[in-house]
């Protein structure tokens, strides 16, 4: 989240799209309700009418996978309205804080002119060369801009041209949204563009789990930038994250593509700290008013290496940079790729801490089969999971007809782990608050914390290398790993290591601003530097006062970065440092002024995104020592035109890989995202893709309040099983009538990959979509069930395909083709 949970109360307009917040983040509705009772309008956009929709002022149905059309139409509405009613928008924000005014290479071409792709596309490689997706620079290397926003090469005009094709009628023919409802959504949300008004977008996996999930979010970002909603209280684009510490696990990089603190993962050609820093981070900007914060990355990677390799990381050995794994350039090691490689027999062992891919992974039957190829599997969990149990999994929908364990050679270790109240440590919520938890009771029997398990395992592996030697043993033996002598590792020592030290004085560092690249500071994760300082463990703070009055609670727990509760908050003030919204100021510049010039610096409110002077003096002159507000971008401006993505600088509508439409309704030849990897072509085995003639119905998956993720944490709890005992399939009254299905009947859902048995939930909350006059049905299935646990049932992921987003490789769980039939009773 750019903002945080309590901040939702400050919103005037709330659009929940790609999220079912009332069901999956129910406590968010404490704040949504508060906002509504203060006059906010709630818009719920979802293929089916949910518990969220039940509380909304406007419910807009859309067919799964059509967010881009939906949002591009909203962007078009805003741009058209801006022309007629510029006073209803914050044009200063758009002009000065976004890249709307930047000129793009004249050779750049939009999909309208390129049969559905952007310029630079190579169909053989299914990828883009991004040469034309670049800014025009002047002779000093500064970006050329047109502050009138009228130059045909400027981002604003390119955007306008791009979205001009997304008129409401075209949009509704794609999404299936009733036109009057759609217009009401556009009008209502656009009202948050007025100065002093704020609109927030709450999204979750309904947005990300598409082959163009990143572009869905880009659409939200563009809309929010045009409406001046980024950085302000009650604004932002807010990813509602689904696991209690998925934010923290992401921050600490249990992911292949970066290191803790979002430092890019070194690749084979990064031979030293110097080349890594220079090629990936430095010299990206020549504009003195741009802070280009990532230019500091060298300090962060060196400090990370000092935390990991301690005294063994020296300037002479390049701080042990050589020990870091270097991934193959451009190679994808993400979830789908991992399981495809395992299926091919190339992964021999796997460690799995508290995850259950046998239920949660896409094309789950293939992933379960892949586990058979492992020589060894280590699972640590609170429960016997479906993954740990894969060697006695059911063959099909009959849960008791299992595969033959004797034929599976994998040896499996199942380690009993401690639950949240049985150990001590911090977790980071979706609003980036790191909060400390305490040990209330001992874990049951011989169960141990994952910290203990990791510590023991590392020490045991290390001892083997010490005693027996082995290749590149130094990467392990030189690692600094000392968390006390007690049975349980000292979690505070780990937390302090994450924060980092001044290695000259041995003191904990107060902020990442003073990290150095010379090896005199350490920090295991620069983003968490300031979380555990000489003043104490910030995550334990419980001061319930809110001096800001907008719900920041600055001394309750701690928030990254540097306790900044709303990121990009310098965009919440005008160029002179005065808040756009006087009622909900996030920060205010209170420095001294003399003769029309600011002469001293002081910001009050939230921790500002950099404490520099405002861009403009009271007399309207620009300051040379000021910085643009979007400090994480080299150009200091938020990107409406985003050249960083691999599949296009602006979002274009494509169909899901499996879609009921055989052509792109935008009228060009590019049906699906042209930059996605087609696993069904490169690895056809068990990767079948269905066609609409055989599978005419759109399928989607989702969660319910009463269960959590792959289910082990809820399907084993009798109280929750009582509430939601079985797999069910939601469908419209119309579809049920066509198929002769009655509410409560047992039914079978089939896709090209597999089948699912569930109970029909026939409901007016699902409606067929009218696409250009043609009726398309959609069904939805919660995906929590599996074959292990107190409540068991078919896994919806036996239906979903192996295909991922072009940028993130997040699987397309949310839109696939299926068929539905009543189960014949034999």
């Amino acid at each position, binding site marked *: 989240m750019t903002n945080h949970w309590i901040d939702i109360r400050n919103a005037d307009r709330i659009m929940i799209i790609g999220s079912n917040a009332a069901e999956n983040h129910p406590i968010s509705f404490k704040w949504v309700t508060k906002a509504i009772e203060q006059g906010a309008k709630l818009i719920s956009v979802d293929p089916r009418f949910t518990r969220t929709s039940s509380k909304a002022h406007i419910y807009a149905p859309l067919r799964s996978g059509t967010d881009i059309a939906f949002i591009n139409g909203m962007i078009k509405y805003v741009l058209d309205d801006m022309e007629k009613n510029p006073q209803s928008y914050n044009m200063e924000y758009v002009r000065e804080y976004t890249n709307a005014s930047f000129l793009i290479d004249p050779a750049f071409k939009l999909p309208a002119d390129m049969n559905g792709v952007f310029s630079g596309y190579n169909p053989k490689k299914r990828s883009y060369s991004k040469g034309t997706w670049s800014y025009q620079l002047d002779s000093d290397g500064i970006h050329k801009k047109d502050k009138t926003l009228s130059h045909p090469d400027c981002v604003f005009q390119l955007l306008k041209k791009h979205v001009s094709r997304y008129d409401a009628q075209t949009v509704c023919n794609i999404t299936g949204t009733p036109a009057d409802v759609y217009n009401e959504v556009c009008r209502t949300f656009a009202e948050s563009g007025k100065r002093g008004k704020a609109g927030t977008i709450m999204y979750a996996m309904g947005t990300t789990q598409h082959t163009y999930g990143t572009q869905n979010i880009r659409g939200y970002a563009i809309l929010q930038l045009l409406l001046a909603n980024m950085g302000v209280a009650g604004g932002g684009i807010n990813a509602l994250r689904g696991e209690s510490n998925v934010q923290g696990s992401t921050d600490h990089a249990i992911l292949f593509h970066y290191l803790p603190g979002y430092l890019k993962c070194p690749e084979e050609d990064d031979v030293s700290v110097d080349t890594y820093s220079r090629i990936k981070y430095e010299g990206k900007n020549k504009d003195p008013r741009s802070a280009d914060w990532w230019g500091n990355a060298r300090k962060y990677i060196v400090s990370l290496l000092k935390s990991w390799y301690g005294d063994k990381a020296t300037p002479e050995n390049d701080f042990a940079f050589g020990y870091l794994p270097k991934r193959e350039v451009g190679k994808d090691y993400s979830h789908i790729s991992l399981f495809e490689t395992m299926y091919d027999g190339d992964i021999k062992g796997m460690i799995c801490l508290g995850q259950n891919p046998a239920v949660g992974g896409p094309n789950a039957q293939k992933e379960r089969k892949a586990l058979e190829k492992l020589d060894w599997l280590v699972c640590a969990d609170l429960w016997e999971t479906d993954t740990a149990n894969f060697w006695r999994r059911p063959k099909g929908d009959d849960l008791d007809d299992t595969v033959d364990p004797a034929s599976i050679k994998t040896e499996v270790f199942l380690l009993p782990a401690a639950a949240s109240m049985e150990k001590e440590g911090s977790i980071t919520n979706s609003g980036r608050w790191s909060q400390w938890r305490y040990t209330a009771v001992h*874990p049951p029997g011989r169960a141990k914390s994952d910290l203990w398990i990791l510590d023991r395992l590392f020490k045991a592996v290390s001892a083997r290398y010490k005693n027996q030697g082995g290749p590149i043993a130094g990467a392990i033996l030189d690692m600094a790993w000392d968390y006390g002598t007690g049975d349980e590792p000292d979690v505070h020592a780990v937390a302090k290591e994450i924060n980092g030290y001044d290695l000259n004085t041995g003191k904990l560092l107060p902020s990442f601003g003073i990290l150095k690249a010379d090896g005199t500071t350490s920090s295991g994760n620069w983003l968490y530097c300031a979380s555990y300082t000489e003043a104490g463990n910030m995550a334990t703070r419980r001061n319930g006062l809110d001096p800001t009055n907008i719900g920041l609670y600055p001394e309750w727990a701690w928030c990254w970065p540097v306790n900044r509760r709303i990121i990009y908050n310098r965009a919440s003030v005008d160029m002179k440092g005065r808040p756009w919204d006087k009622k909900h100021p996030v920060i205010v510049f209170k420095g001294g002024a003399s003769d029309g010039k600011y002469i001293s610096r002081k910001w009050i409110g939230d921790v500002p995104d950099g404490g520099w002077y405002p861009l403009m003096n009271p007399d309207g002159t620009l300051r040379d020592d000021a910085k643009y507000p979007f400090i994480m971008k080299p150009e200091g401006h938020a990107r409406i035109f985003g050249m960083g993505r691999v599949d296009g600088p602006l979002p274009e509508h494509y169909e899901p890989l499996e879609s009921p439409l055989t052509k792109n309704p935008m009228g060009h030849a590019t049906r699906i995202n042209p930059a996605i990897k087609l696993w069904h072509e490169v690895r056809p085995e068990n990767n079948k893709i269905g066609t609409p003639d055989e599978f005419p119905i759109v399928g989607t998956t989702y969660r319910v309040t009463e269960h959590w993720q792959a289910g082990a944490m809820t399907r084993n709890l009798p109280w929750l099983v009582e509430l939601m005992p079985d797999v069910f399939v939601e469908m419209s009254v119309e579809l049920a009538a066509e198929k002769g299905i009655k509410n409560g009947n047992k039914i079978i859902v089939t896709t090209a990959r597999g089948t699912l048995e569930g109970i029909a939930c026939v409901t007016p909350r699902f409606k067929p979509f009218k696409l250009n006059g043609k009726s398309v049905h959609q069904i939805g299935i919660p995906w929590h069930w599996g074959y292990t646990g107190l409540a068991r049932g078919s896994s919806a992921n036996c239906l979903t395909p192996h295909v991922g987003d072009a940028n993130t490789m997040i699987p397309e769980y949310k839109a696939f083709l299926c068929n539905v039939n009543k189960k014949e009773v034999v």
Partner: protein
Amino acid sequence: MDLTRRDFLKLSGVTALIATGLFNLKPLTARAQDLQLRIRYAKQTTTICPYCAVGCGQIVSVSNGKVINIEGDPDHPINQGSLCSKGSALYQVANNERRLDKVKYRAPGGSDWEEKSWNWAIERISSRIKETRDAELSDGRKTNRIDNIAAIGGAALDNEECYLYSKFARALGVVYLEHQARI
């Protein structure tokens, strides 16, 4: 953070309510049950809900080493004491006969779990990790990268655990490193 019962009741706004005299009940007859609060003598500890990432505060009441109650922390600014159905059910994570309490092992081809000791498991796993890693690096490469061990999971772990996991995996040279954030 440990709370005394007085703190908890204070957090719950009880002081104000008692002051208004709302809670002077009619004395029950001698037959009536003793209505002592069942968490009266419990030790109370704050925690954060392990389900979604809203980050709701909870108070865990413990008596004789057992969790006897878990409810929302009324002082927590995000949830102010409220919880959803999952958060309200956390008691059954702490008290559940289905919880794993021993190390289990399934031998290759085995048809059931066997119980093992921690020492045995840690030794055996570390041996398998080393043998697998060494096989991958046996080609004399200089880069610490192994493509034959995967490490997944972590969204339910604490930050300190995630950090050590991340660090451990990199020491081994693991690049197939993934977790729930992707899926």
